[in-house]
């Protein structure tokens, strides 16, 4: 029988919400393979987070914890040790979770130690042994058939619904493994402080590109973003030019987003940018160049200068809010 294990990330004793689509993908794999779902919580003291997760259950047969001081702060080295240990101890056949920077870092390392193939950025569980993933900037969907005792996967967060709570389960602590960081030191993460929702979780994303010309001009996009309760994004051209921090980049090498509304302002629409946002429900493109490739995938195309269009759009939205 198959046993599917999801590697979860927690913060402040709670599950990080970006992990929920990965649980859904794992549920689908468990269903397709006729197996059980298991959840793993790693950390220096994962008990509190694990019990909160066990309350929610998510249809799992068990929640497991693995505690070791070396698991915090996150390092791929120590996490891969822990993941390998858990897979061997529990007899796991499938291991994965949402494709976050954490799992993209640690999971291939663990998979290599186990001679396991890893299917990256799964968008669909096609059958028990075949998974679909995008390639070539999302311009093609590749089906990968796997054949190995242990198979690893990361799930693209935008392609699976967040898992819903259901059926609480028990927590069991796995005996402590030998984990170590191989002499690395993590000197902390410099976070971009923002009161806005996370780019990958926001219902509305407003992104600016090269045509914004300079960082100061993003102020007006921020105004629009906040009015809509959304998150601010950018194209690579804008982040490379230093207009906004790199972690706002949407695209093949940045964040993959799929909000209800994506507003691309002064973005030409390179393939690499489209790869990061074309799953959005409604796409609006505002660009003064009518030849811009972004218009080919936009639901609503407006050929206009942002300097004129955005203030007017803000005004209309404000007027509507005032009237409501």
């Amino acid at each position, binding site marked *: 029988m198959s046993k599917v294990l999801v590697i979860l990330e927690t913060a402040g004793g709670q599950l990080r919400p970006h992990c929920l689509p990965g649980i859904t993908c794992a549920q689908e794999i468990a269903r397709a393979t006729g197996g059980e779902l298991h959840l793993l919580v790693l950390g220096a003291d994962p008990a509190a987070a694990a019990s909160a997760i066990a309350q929610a259950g998510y249809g799992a047969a068990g929640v497991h914890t693995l505690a070791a001081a070396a698991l915090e702060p996150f390092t791929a080295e120590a996490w891969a040790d822990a993941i390998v240990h858990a897979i061997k101890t529990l007899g796991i056949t499938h291991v994965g979770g949402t494709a976050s920077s954490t799992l993209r870092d640690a999971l291939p390392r663990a998979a290599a*130690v186990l001679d396991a193939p890893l299917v990256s950025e799964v968008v669909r569980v096609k059958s028990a042994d075949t998974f679909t993933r995008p390639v*070539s900037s999302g311009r093609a969907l590749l*089906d990968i058939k796997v054949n190995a005792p242990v198979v690893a996967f990361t799930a693209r967060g935008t392609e699976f619904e967040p898992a819903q709570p259901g059926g609480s389960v028990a927590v069991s602590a796995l005996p402590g493994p030998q984990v170590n960081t191989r002499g*690395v030191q993590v000197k*902390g*993460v*410099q976070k971009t402080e923002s009161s806005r929702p996370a780019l990958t979780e926001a219902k509305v994303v407003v992104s600016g590109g090269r045509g914004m010309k300079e960082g100061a001009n993003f102020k007006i996009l921020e105004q629009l973003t906040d009015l809509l309760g959304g998150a601010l994004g950018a194209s690579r051209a804008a982040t490379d030019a230093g207009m906004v921090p790199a972690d706002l980049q949407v695209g093949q090498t940045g964040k993959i987003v799929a909000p209800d509304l994506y507003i691309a302002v002064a973005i030409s629409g390179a393939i690499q940018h489209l790869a990061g946002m074309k799953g959005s429900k409604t796409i609006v493109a505002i660009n003064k160049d009518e030849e811009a490739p972004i218009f080919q995938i936009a639901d609503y195309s407006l*050929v*206009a200068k942002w300097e004129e269009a955005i203030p007017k759009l803000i005004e209309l939205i404000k007027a509507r809010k005032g009237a409501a």
Partner: protein
Amino acid sequence: MKILVTVKRIPDPDESLKFAGGGLDYSASKWVANAFDEYGVETALRLAEVVGGTQRLAEVIVLSICPEGQRQHMTQFLAMGGDRGVIVDADPDKLDTVAVSKLIAAVFKKEACDLLIAGKLSQDNEGNQVAQRVAGLLNLPQACFAATVAWDQTNSALTVTREVDDGVETKRVPLPAVLSVDLRIVLPKSVSNGSTPATHAYNEGPRLASLKGITMAKRKPVAVLKPADLGVTLTTTEAPAGVSAPPARKAGQKVTTVEMLFDKLTKEAKVL
């Protein structure tokens, strides 16, 4: 120090894809170097050279797994400034990632390297896993998705900033180690080796091969190995089982005024 850099050739990512017979037809494609591998080689060269001096701090070995007869990209990377090449003669499309990672790890060990540099992903397959896997196989520390790297020669360590979902993480790894590079590694001041003056700003992006570099590249040694020479047994833990085009988006509409856009968004799309 010995730096091993992995490179591969890919179908030109700017050409449109041709779907044929349940797969992709690359028979008429132009083949180019994977951009992230160019960033990897540029990183290695910036670590190895001393700008303003003649000293070389590291040997840069370029590794590609490719059919021996399709090695133009190897010549290109040697022309950029790599010191020598290693080719593992095999068709990478017929290898699984398990085997590819083992081949790279085997070359790293055989050459007794101190640092592996790999692009974060290849633009065609987008697996984003080879560097991490090789680090696991070699039991070495890893620093993936690097945006900047600083080499502390005295203490034989790298300080790397990595782009993670929440921001930028600073990680210090002792050598030997494995590094995967993201695109910002080729900004003017992303790489420092402690010997090139800290004030030096590189041109943005990977360097172009000079005419002299191109001439010299033809004389640089390139070793050709078979997978069996490296003691690696090839596996088939994964295989492609079909390719399809993603569902097309429904055709969009042109709006001529901001008022019209606002009207569509509120009444038709109902997203405002």
